[in-house]
């Protein structure tokens, strides 16, 4: 025992020390303005990603990549809206594609069969889609989140069956073709990029407001919310509707862009993709799912030769992440950005 102690004394151990890099800069005080370095430290991560997003078509002129980024934006908006439910409210939705599908179908029916112009069919279709999805999910919000997850998995699968059953309205397996699409790829890219930024700002505002605080309280301890005299069901329904609004809007945009809706809008692969992206980016961070969406969409596009193995990839990513790294990319980035490690010699 003694010798061990002595030997320990003689060997100088090196350990890592982690220091907070931006304490002064993040103090939200005038100190931020003390040096350009601090200003850059605070501003760059907030300004650079949107700038890259907006400048991307100027750098890469290939329309193919504009389409990929449109798809990434589509998933980003959907997963950010998923995060408001799954991350902040504790209602894990396994069927977020229900909203996407409803948004797409309502828009298509309005535009193709009633001749409603595009600038009206998108908002009306979005509202109708979100309302319809909320109506289906609302009964399970009286009970705990488990019921919501169960029903949310069942509902889109059932909708695929009903689409085939009501083929005269929904077009059946072939779907509805011929939606109005007056915009070019580049215009769609900018619409989607703008939508991603606006969605992020709105959802972050919602999630960190008093309303979002109640949602987090519902996630952590619902009885205590009830005891405080707040009706959790009302808050959950509102959160569901807000979340559904964005998912439904994305579906309706996609319908107009592709000039087509079909049962594929309801497919489980979309819902699973949304969950995978959110978990990859970091649940309950709002921006995390968007990061995850861009990374995973570009990754799957890059691994196109995988073809039908995309779902397998999603499943494996989910399994590994949840077992070994549940914090997600965004929290990791944030941690490494705000701290730096250095090696300290211990005497």
């Amino acid at each position, binding site marked *: 025992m003694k010798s061990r102690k002595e030997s320990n004394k003689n060997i100088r151990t090196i350990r890592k020390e982690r220091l907070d890099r931006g304490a002064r800069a993040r103090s939200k005080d005038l100190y931020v303005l003390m040096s350009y370095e601090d200003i850059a430290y605070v501003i760059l991560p907030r300004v650079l990603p949107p700038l890259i997003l907006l400048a991307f078509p100027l750098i890469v002129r290939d329309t193919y990549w504009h389409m990929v980024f449109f798809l990434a934006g589509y998933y980003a908006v959907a997963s950010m809206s998923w995060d408001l439910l799954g991350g902040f409210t504790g209602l894990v939705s396994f069927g977020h594609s229900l909203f996407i599908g409803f948004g797409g179908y309502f828009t298509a029916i309005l535009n193709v069969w009633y001749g409603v112009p595009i600038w009206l069919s998108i908002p009306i279709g979005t509202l109708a889609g979100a309302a319809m999805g909320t109506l289906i999910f609302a009964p399970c919000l009286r*009970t705990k989140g*488990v019921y919501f997850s169960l*029903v949310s998995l*069942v509902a889109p699968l059932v909708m695929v069956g009903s689409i085939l059953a009501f083929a005269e309205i929904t077009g059946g397996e072939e779907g509805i073709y011929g939606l109005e699409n007056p915009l070019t790829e580049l215009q769609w890219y900018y619409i989607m990029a703008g939508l991603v930024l606006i969605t992020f700002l709105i959802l972050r505002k919602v999630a960190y407001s008093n309303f979002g605080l109640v949602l987090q309280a519902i996630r952590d301890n619902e009885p205590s919310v009830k005891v405080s005299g707040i009706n959790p069901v009302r808050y959950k329904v509102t959160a569901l509707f807000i979340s559904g609004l964005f998912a439904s809007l994305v579906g309706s945009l996609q319908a107009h862009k592709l000039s087509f809706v079909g049962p594929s809008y309801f497919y489980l692969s979309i819902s699973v993709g949304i969950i995978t992206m959110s978990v990859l980016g970091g649940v309950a961070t709002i921006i995390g799912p968007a990061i995850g969406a861009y990374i995973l969409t570009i990754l799957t596009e890059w691994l196109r030769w995988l073809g039908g193995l995309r779902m*397998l990839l999603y*499943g494996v990513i989910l399994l590994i992440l949840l077992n070994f790294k549940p914090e997600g990319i965004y929290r990791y980035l944030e941690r490494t950005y705000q701290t730096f490690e250095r090696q300290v010699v211990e005497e």
Partner: protein
Amino acid sequence: MLPILIYGTTLGFTLALIAIGLSLVFGVARIINFAHGAFFAIASYTLYLFFITLNIPLPVSMILALVSTAAISVIMYIISLSRVRGMELNEMIITLAFTIIVIELLRIYFGPSPLGVPSFMKGGITIAGYVVDMQRIFIVVISLATLAALAFLVKKTRIGIGMRALAQDEDAAMLIGVNREKMCIISLAISAILAGIAGISVTPIMTASLEGAWYALLNGIAIVILGGLGSLVGSLIAAFIIGYAEIIIATYVSSHLKSIVALIFIIVILILRPSGIMGRHHEIEERV
């Protein structure tokens, strides 16, 4: 009328086996097992693998299929589910991810198209002028035997008593000395075997297909909600309600609308009586 009764009864028994397993795992281990449908598909496909591809005699390949299904469920628990115990949301996502992985692997190995297995027994019995094939009789008999064995296991054996203790009060059961992890694994294996028996017995009728996994999961969920989460008797009753309802809808309206029955039942029961037909309300208030 008679065909509806016969088809509804066989479907009801099959769904009962599926849903009781789901309910059992929720009651004992508090896991919402989204991988339950995968067990159903694994059993069908392994039966095909052993019986048709490897040409092993039927009884042996049935047992092999059940054993491999149970083994896969235990492996799933040990390698990933045991790490996230208690984190409900992660458990659900992991089991769903597991289902997807299993289905995609089955798709790679066996191909996307459904695979047929010949009937286990030829011929049929005439009941009131209507021929019932032996496969359906086989389903009813094997389901009744399984349910009786399960009832014996839950009511009489030490394992069953431990399970019921865990379902009633987790802390008190663990205080007395019930090994929770062991019980969770056993209940998961039993539920996988129940789903496997259902999968094996309907394979000659429904073929081994990937959609079968989602069908089993979807209906299992609907039945479990209708009967009350964690209530085995409730699941049994709800399975027959949904079984008959599906057959009636498929016969008189449209076979595409079959799946919508499940959703309508779920929504109606959640509006009228959220705890399910057999769920005890105060207990549900505590848990749900």
